[in-house]
């Protein structure tokens, strides 16, 4: 029994990575109807920035104040840096093509993804980088047979806090209402005096920042990062977004968590090598039965 629990906790941990990344996809999709292919690379870049901060800038802080301080600083710096990157990419690659329709924006997003990936490669080199073990918190907690690392708990708590904060902002604040209105109907929202560009800057600030936080946590959890990992995680997170129902924020969160748990249970009880096949099969089956995702709303088709 405790094996199942352990797998579920592992699943929730990686699920929370997917969920954080998925939120970025979902927000951008909700407002712009654009699959932001560069989003996975925001995540990878966040991971690399976190690595640099941890290893080169705050090693002193880690030694004097403990690994949690180092982790906090790395997460914070990566998040803030990626806000800047997100705004810059939106300004350079997306804003000029909004009016041309959806498909040019997809190509532009792929171009931005290639660009960012190669920036990472040029700055940090093409090889794997490893988060050093002694800079990462190693505490463990035992509940009877069940062993959980402190890092996992902190990852879960931090992800949950961030997701709740985002949920609060989107659902309860005036600005969140503006974002939802824009997602619902861009033209009407603009007529009501909502500044479309401010909404977009907002989502391109928060989305990449959340992705970057996930990036640092993935680095700490798996220790090893590579410049191409944005594609793998991006693909999974995008799957999570669709699983939950695209453009629906709670859907993206639950989609991520469900995907993570399914992946871990699939790996443990079916086959580790086939776990991704399992994940994609579930996705396809869900979409065949519910074509708008688990939590997606069925909207009447416009004719």
């Amino acid at each position, binding site marked *: 029994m405790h094996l199942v629990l352990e797998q579920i906790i592992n699943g929730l941990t990686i699920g929370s990575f997917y969920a954080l990344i998925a939120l970025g996809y979902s927000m951008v999709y909700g407002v712009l109807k654009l699959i932001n292919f560069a989003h996975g690379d925001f995540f990878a870049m966040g991971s690399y920035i976190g690595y640099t901060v941890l290893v080169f800038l705050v090693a002193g802080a880690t030694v004097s104040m403990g690994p949690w301080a180092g982790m906090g600083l790395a997460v914070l710096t990566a998040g803030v840096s990626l806000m800047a990157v997100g705004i810059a990419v939106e300004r350079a690659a997306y804003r000029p*093509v909004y009016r041309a329709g959806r498909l040019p924006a997809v*190509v532009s997003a792929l171009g931005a993804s290639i660009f960012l990936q190669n920036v990472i490669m040029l700055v940090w080199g093409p090889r794997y980088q490893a988060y050093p073990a002694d800079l990462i918190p190693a505490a463990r907690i035992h509940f009877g047979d069940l062993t959980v690392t402190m890092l996992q708990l902190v990852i879960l708590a931090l992800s949950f806090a961030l997701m709740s904060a985002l949920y609060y902002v989107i659902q309860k604040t005036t600005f969140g209402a503006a974002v939802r209105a824009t997602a619902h109907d861009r033209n009407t929202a603009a007529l009501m005096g909502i500044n479309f560009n401010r909404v977009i800057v907002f989502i391109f600030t928060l989305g990449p920042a959340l992705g970057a936080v996930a990036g640092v946590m993935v680095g700490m959890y798996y220790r090893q990062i590579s410049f191409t990992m944005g594609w793998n995680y991006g*693909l999974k997170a995008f799957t999570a977004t669709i699983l939950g129902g695209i453009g629906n924020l709670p859907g993206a969160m639950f989609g991520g968590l469900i995907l993570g748990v399914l992946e871990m249970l699939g790996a443990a009880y079916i086959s580790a090598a086939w776990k991704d096949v399992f994940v*994609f099969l579930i996705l396809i089956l869900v979409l065949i039965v519910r074509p708008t995702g688990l939590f997606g709303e069925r909207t009447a088709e416009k004719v």
Partner: protein
Amino acid sequence: MRDLQNLSGGGLRSARLLAPLAFACLVTAYPFAVSDYLIDIGFFFGIYALLGLSLNIVLGEVGLFDLGHAGFYAIGAYVTAVLNTRYQVPVLVLMPVSCLAAALFAYLVCSPIIHLKGDYLCIVTIGMGEIVRLALINNPFDLTGGPNGVFGIDFPRVGNLLVVDSSIEYYFLVWITVGVSIAGLVSLQHSRIGRAWNCIREDAVAAQATGINVRAYKLLAFVLGAALAGAAGNIYASKLMCVSPESFTFWESCLMFCIVLIGGMGSIPGVIVGAAFISLFPEIFRPFAMYRMLVFGSIMIVMMMVRPGGFWPRKRGAVTLRPLMEDTADGAV
């Protein structure tokens, strides 16, 4: 009714023939003027042109977002590789077999998901492509050789008379296939099927209302697109003499997607331009070494700002009816 076949004017037709003819001459003359290395680049240009044409049926003609097209390409390549290395079936015989296998796979996989719309279809095709790749890596029934793939695929040959084993012969093999495909696709564009596809792309509901079987035509597009990708896979496998899952990643599907969108949706000359961009650019900018992909990404962005409809968009509404009297006069001759 015979007159309907003669819808476009004669002068216009000869002008339209001129550009493709010039291009055909260029493609034919090119390998005689350059080194083997450059011929190989021309070969890969041809492969990408074939893949672009195959995705263009699905994405360009019908407007279905397919980001898993590398899966069909992989099926074609692996069918050729496995049947050739295990049962010594000749590669040329395997070309139709690869087409059929990829088409059958597309039919089986796409039947249950064809009702999905837009981005939901997109993610399901991504999932399908990934499942194919992961399955190849996991080596089911010990057929696919796992991550290393399958080695030692034979040359395409007709007995000992004609063996395609040099760069220039492969070059012509792929470009002849491209030529035949273009001829087929152009006539398809002007047929009932092509018009039905375009109608579905513009408005699926209206298409349904006019009596077009939307589901069947969408499936047909997937099946034909997959068959062409299967042919590309066949040629690719015999050229490289080995296939591995690394050649059929999500990235490859994205490249095909870019070929169609950079060229212009539904435009055959556009696909050729897009394929040229994707395959030749990294070679031309080889001197920039590590920076070339950086430039590649930036150019994709700039291209979409400058020409959002693609480099060579398809002209619409080309059908013009000639006066009735003239037609009957022609018909009487």
